[in-house]
């Protein structure tokens, strides 16, 4: 009996030790929690997002910190891996909030993890901005403390279709496919709605299991001879898609995808076959933006990214950096210093709702009602196309850098 008593006592002691109370320290820097997918299925996007947050913190600190009423406060990022899993994401947020006492949170890449993290930040009243989640799903839930800088796909997906529809001659028929994950499915649905609205006839619309080889399906698509093939999917799926089309030797007049086309890996992997693929984007390195905060324009941000990571920046990364900027601006506005009280955090949310700024990334302005609640609707979504290995803005007409190349050059003639 003695032994088990000893055992009990040691158990209790261990537990006590495990919970050393963290004193509320006075700090001269902002503690920023970062909940992202550093491992697991979504690690690719998670790491792009991380680069965006890192670059923001690096730049802020290089400038001495965030200027609050004349005093500069550095920012320090505290990461927690969500492992691409909602429950780990929720735990990660809880740790950052209750153990690290972070002032605010930069959020996950995927909507699944965001959905599990949002109730946690809601409970502790910690504002969170996700720099990359773009599923419409998040915003219809109307989380008060959750914001996003990348517009949802149903907001951005229509633009490239409209660009294509404005061509002369415009594509008349389309086949629209989407991979069966939240983001890709929403993308395909957005494409479909826009195409129908633009009077492009949708010959075939399918949601397909993620990661599959779609060659046979594309063989069937070829029989329909659509002018436009639009596909919602993730990086590897997009590469496979182009390769499949090339292998069955079908060149539609236009090939449209969403996020992933602007990713450097897309051009690297496909070489000249990547050319003339259309994509939807909200930002590119040659976007015409101007700003007074951190980076004066898109080009300087792109250069900073090249310098820091030796990787070209895409809009996920840019949106993530912009999330930091949004916090920065709102903090300055309410004059909050590190170690914010609950009241301050509540007013930070109010301040975020009023943010209306021009950044290197474009205009950041969060919707305060409707289906895009707290998503960034200040942006002008772009139509991009890969031209000679570079991402070029080809729409909307008033801000385009180059004319869209249409129809696409046959694979064989390249």
């Amino acid at each position, binding site marked *: 009996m003695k032994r088990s008593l000893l055992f009990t006592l040691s158990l209790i002691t261990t537990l006590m030790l495990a919970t050393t109370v963290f004193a509320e320290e006075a700090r001269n820097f902002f503690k920023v929690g970062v909940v992202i997918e550093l491992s697991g299925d979504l690690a690719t996007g998670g790491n792009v997002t991380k680069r965006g947050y890192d670059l923001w913190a690096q730049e802020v600190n290089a400038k001495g910190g965030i200027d609050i009423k004349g005093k500069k406060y550095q920012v320090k990022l505290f990461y927690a891996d969500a492992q691409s899993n909602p429950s780990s994401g929720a735990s990660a947020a809880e740790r950052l909030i209750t153990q690290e006492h972070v002032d605010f949170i930069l959020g996950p890449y995927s909507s699944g993890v965001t959905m599990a993290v949002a109730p946690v930040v809601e409970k502790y009243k910690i504002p969170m901005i996700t720099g990359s989640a773009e599923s419409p799903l998040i915003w219809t839930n109307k989380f008060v403390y959750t914001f996003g800088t990348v517009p949802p796909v149903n907001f951005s997906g229509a633009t490239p279709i409209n660009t294509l529809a404005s061509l002369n001659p415009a594509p008349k028929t389309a086949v629209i496919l989407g991979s*069966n994950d939240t983001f890709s499915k929403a993308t395909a649905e957005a494409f479909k709605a826009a195409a129908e609205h633009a009077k492009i006839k949708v010959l075939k619309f399918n949601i397909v299991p993620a990661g599959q080889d779609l060659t046979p399906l594309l063989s069937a698509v070829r029989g329909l001879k659509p002018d436009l093939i639009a596909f919602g999917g993730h990086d590897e799926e997009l590469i496979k898609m182009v390769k499949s089309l090339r292998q069955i030797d079908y060149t539609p007049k236009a090939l449209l995808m969403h996020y992933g086309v602007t990713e450097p890996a897309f051009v690297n992997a496909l070489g000249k076959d990547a050319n003339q693929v259309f994509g939807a984007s909200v930002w590119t390195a040659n976007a015409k933006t101007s700003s007074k905060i951190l980076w004066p324009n898109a080009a300087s941000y792109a250069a900073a990214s090249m310098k820091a990571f030796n990787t070209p920046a895409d809009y996920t990364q840019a949106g993530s950096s912009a999330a930091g900027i949004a916090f920065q601006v709102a903090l300055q506005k309410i004059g909050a210093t590190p170690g914010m009280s609950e009241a301050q955090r509540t007013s930070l949310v109010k301040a975020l709702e009023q943010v209306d700024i021009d950044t290197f990334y474009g205009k950041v302005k969060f919707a305060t009602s409707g289906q895009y609640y707290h998503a960034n609707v200040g942006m002008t979504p772009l139509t991009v196309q890969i031209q000679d290995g570079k991402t070029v803005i080809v729409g909307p007409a008033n801000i385009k850098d180059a004319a869209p190349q249409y129809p696409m050059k046959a694979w064989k003639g390249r």
Partner: protein
Amino acid sequence: MKDKIIRWGLPVLFVLIAMPAVIHDTFFLRVVTEAVMWIGLAIAFDVLAGYTGYLNFGHGAFFGLGAYTTALLMMKAGWPFALALPMGGVMAAVAALIAGFPTLRLKGAYFAIATWALSRAVQQLALIMDITGGPDGMRLPPFLNPQFFYYLMLAIVAATFALLWYLLEHSPFGLKLKAIREDEQGAMALGLNPTKLKMQAFILSAVPTGILGGVYAYWITFIDPASTLGDLISDQALVMVVFGGMGTLIGPVIGAILIFAFKTLFWAYLSDFQLLYLIILGAVIALSVVFMPNGLWGTLGGFKKKKRDHENKLETSLEARLQKNEGE
């Protein structure tokens, strides 16, 4: 044996019950809640894998089924959680009954692959159905009371442990299952009905898993096919059970605690080295299979047993006589 579990189990239970009163760190509570959940999943997995010798790669499907049943009843039918939760267990039992009859006829690798294929099919089904929300998953109303979920999880897992302890280590049922594991044909000659026993084990393994799925859904407030119906649940339960020691109840508990603690510490405090996690976890699994095929607990127990066997050999007949006299 019975003595021992009360002597050691009660203090642990007492400490676990008292813990939230002492510790107010909600993150810590959340981690312990999840650890308790994994203990439940691991011991339920072991009923079939360790005791009966059937490796169920579809274990996670019961978890997802429970999660979705609870979520659907709450969200679509407006049931209260208290009623929807048990239905998660009921659905798991029904599914086990339906899937068990054909699947349990298969043996060894065939059973493992069949259960895996079936669970993948269930996941695909959840991905394409409308009512489940497809890839978007489902959101439940947030009820973010950490103590509530901690005690609920603890109660369910403690009850599961007690029930399994009674059935597997105390009542004849456990030994009968082991007989099935060792030699199904031979067991039949001794009056054991393998079909019935395997089915009972399958249901016994499924029900707690389904209920835990229901608690998980309400606790995390969000479920989707990737997180509740993916490979994660089965894979991790398998790893915990193998590492801790199959065919025992303490082994999986130890395995679950150690693996989960390792995982949590790694991501919480070593996020920068995140990729090392997979490498280390993989290596731990592979090496533990090579060097401790009986798992941590089995290996420790093995040392003890060897010693005991040795002593036994010296004084066996004496002991036997004593035992027999006791019996008469």
